[in-house]
């Protein structure tokens, strides 16, 4: 390997395999979860879900059609009218606490299944996704009987009704928790669609909800693709829509709801600027940059996918970053040493590879470490683009992969202008050891979440959501409650 200013790559850097072995019981086929029962799709349609690290089929899953959506919305409406909105709020809270506990009890099983179905490293599903799922239910469980304290003023909150929720494949169970917990705490019932490549943990969650004896119809889970999502969004019985996914689909949803008074929240794409000033602690910044873009293979809407480095430290920082990238292990998601797991699906891998080609064609300089990559499965090396133009596609477009576009700046003003030169505004990062500069920079970045001297941190009490074309509304925290209540 190459000589490095900081690390000796002439020694052996290979690790012994450390596979996670916790068992997961997986059925051969899964149905739709409607009114507390698993059923086949009325039209009999199914689809397969594969392990992206092995390309092997994990299970066959029923695909919900219009009639199934209608049945689920009816079940949710009945549960809303007869049970959930009428129940003492403290009891709603107790159901949510119970769900949180059951998730903690089965945490390892859920983590393994999440990594199998979605490709993310077990270290992340075990230490980030599943703990946050349980924490989210815990946090909102406590709100259920305290909603009168959440909204200043004389008006009292009441639930909205049946909520239609459509979630993505990058944090499958976590996004389900983000959507379900506040909706249920406020007294709403739900029809939820998991992504077509990652339906399994949501269906396992359905089993868990039955174990928790959650009343039938309060949560209905309908696997499917875009058509299923559209049927949920446009069903007249759905009073509130919550969507996490691409900006294009988010805009289409906003258009399709234009003639209705349905409420909606959208968590959409991002192209976050991660700004490193010359006075930053560089080694910490390098860790933050790596966590910012290579966490979850870069399948993160708030990923720090644009790196802005103050010109005077560019060469030093990039050398350290490249060294750090050489140590990243790309491979089996179930191996506890793995840093970068499998790309979620073949189409997503093809999209990333398209951008790797396009970035080079447009004149940016691509760099990848010589990391070995498994022969089978969908994998992508961590990638840098150096000397990027502001107009480059790898700077402008959300790639949703482990691809970092690097640019430089000389002045604070230039940094902010470049950072905000994007239609997105989901997140941002600022690295400097000067306290006053931290506050100046975080207040100038036009984004809903800004990390100072850290990146990609999440907490159920911390609101999350985008400015501009990154979305509408917030999820998480006190501010995530408002979306699921009407004030009267």
């Amino acid at each position: 390997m190459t000589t490095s200013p900081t690390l000796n790559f002439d020694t052996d850097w290979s690790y012994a395999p450390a596979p996670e072995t916790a068992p997961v019981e997986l059925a051969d086929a899964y149905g739709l979860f409607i009114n507390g029962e698993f059923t086949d799709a009325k039209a009999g349609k199914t689809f397969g879900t594969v392990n992206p690290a092995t390309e092997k089929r994990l299970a066959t899953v029923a695909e919900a059609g219009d009639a199934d959506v209608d049945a689920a919305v009816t079940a949710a409406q009945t549960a809303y009218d007869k049970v959930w909105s009428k129940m003492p709020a403290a009891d709603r809270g107790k159901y949510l606490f119970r769900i949180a506990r059951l998730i903690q009890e089965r945490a390892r099983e859920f983590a393994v299944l999440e990594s199998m179905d979605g490709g993310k490293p077990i270290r992340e599903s075990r230490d980030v996704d599943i703990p946050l799922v349980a924490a989210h239910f815990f946090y909102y469980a406590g709100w259920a009987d305290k909603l009168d304290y959440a909204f200043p003023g004389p008006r009292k909150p009441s639930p909205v009704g049946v909520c239609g929720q459509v979630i993505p494949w990058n944090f499958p169970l976590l996004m389900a928790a983000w959507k379900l917990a506040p909706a249920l705490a406020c007294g709403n019932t739900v029809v939820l669609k998991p992504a077509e490549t990652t339906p399994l943990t949501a269906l396992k969650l359905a089993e868990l909800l039955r174990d928790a004896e959650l009343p039938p119809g309060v949560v209905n889970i309908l696997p499917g693709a875009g058509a299923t999502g559209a049927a949920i969004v446009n069903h007249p019985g759905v009073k509130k829509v919550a969507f996490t996914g691409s900006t294009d689909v988010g805009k289409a949803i906003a258009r399709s709801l234009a003639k209705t008074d349905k409420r909606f929240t959208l968590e959409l794409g991002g192209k976050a600027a991660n700004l490193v000033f010359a006075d930053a602690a560089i080694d910490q910044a390098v860790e933050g940059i790596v966590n910012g873009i290579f966490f979850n293979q870069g399948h993160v809407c708030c990923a720090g996918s644009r790196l802005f480095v103050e010109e005077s430290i560019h060469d030093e920082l990039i050398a350290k970053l490249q060294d750090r990238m050489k140590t990243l292990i790309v491979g089996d998601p179930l191996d506890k040493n793995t840093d970068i797991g499998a790309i979620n699906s073949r189409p997503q891998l093809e999209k990333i590879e398209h951008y790797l080609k396009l970035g080079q064609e447009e004149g940016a300089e691509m760099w990848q470490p010589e990391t070995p990559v498994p022969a089978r499965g969908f994998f992508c090396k961590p990638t840098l683009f150096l000397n990027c133009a502001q107009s480059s596609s790898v700077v402008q477009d959300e790639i949703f992969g482990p691809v970092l576009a690097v640019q430089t700046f000389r002045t604070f003003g230039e940094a902010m202008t470049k950072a905000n030169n994007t239609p997105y505004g989901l997140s941002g990062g600022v690295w400097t050891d000067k306290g006053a500069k931290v506050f100046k920079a975080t207040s100038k970045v036009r984004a809903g979440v800004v990390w100072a001297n850290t990146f990609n941190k999440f907490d159920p009490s911390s609101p999350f959501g985008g400015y501009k074309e990154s979305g509408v509304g917030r999820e998480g925290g006190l501010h995530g409650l408002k979306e699921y209540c009407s004030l009267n």
Partner: protein
Amino acid sequence: MKPDTDTIVDTSTDTHASPRLAVAKTYKLYLGGKFPRTESGRYYKLFSGGGDSGEVLANVCLGSRKDFRNAVVAARAAQPGWASASAFLKSQILYRVAEMLEGRASQFAAELVSMGLEPEAARAEVTTAIDRLVHFAGWADKYQQVFSAVNPVASSHFNFTILEPTGVVAVIAPEASPLAGLVSALVPVIVGGNTAVVIASHARPLSAITLAEVLHTSDVPGGVVNLITGDKAELLPHVGTHMDVNAVVYADDDRDQLAALREAAADNLKRVVQRGGVDWLGDDANDPYTILATQEVKTTWHPIGV
């Protein structure tokens, strides 16, 4: 504090041998702190009492797409400065607007009557507008305290959530309430540090332009509020599709207009705030949640330690 009735000047009575010729006002747009005519040169006639014929009250500017785009440029240029003005200063300026409006209450009432309002309704429009300004002037340095949060995250971080203005906001004023409705829709937008482009009531546009004179003499920086008169059916499609507008407050009552606006607004995910069906003269319009409607929620994470 009441004016002495002996000092009030009635300009219609003559003190000379021949009747005095009144001086009529030219009503223009208000863009970037200036009062230009519409670049299109177009106008529509406003008749006394709000009818279709009779005495002409004014040749009102029929604002164009270009006027709207110019207004957005002015609003965008003014936005960072207005957002960074201290809450205390914004509060004082808005209170100053109320003071100026109070001083010209009779003029506004007479103008509303000339457009067809009953005197009692005209007075209610004016006093409500003044009181609304005072109410929201007081919110300027309070809504942030009431609606922000410090979040007890589980990791070792100081995490807080604050509100920031969404940016440039188009305000579609109600036809029904030409002054109180306009002020009630506009003030929550600007108190939060946004700048605004207002599409005034088509049927009763004069109050908006006279309000611009009040804003202009109250230290509201040029470009913070821009006012356009014209045909909503013509202008709204351009409002919806403009890519440098962050939000639209729709305060009128036409469902089809609202739906079309929402559909077009999806192009850049403008926030569309529906404020139809409001009793503009009632206390319900004092709702601070209307400030939140054009605010973005920002959460910042700082590590604790090291």
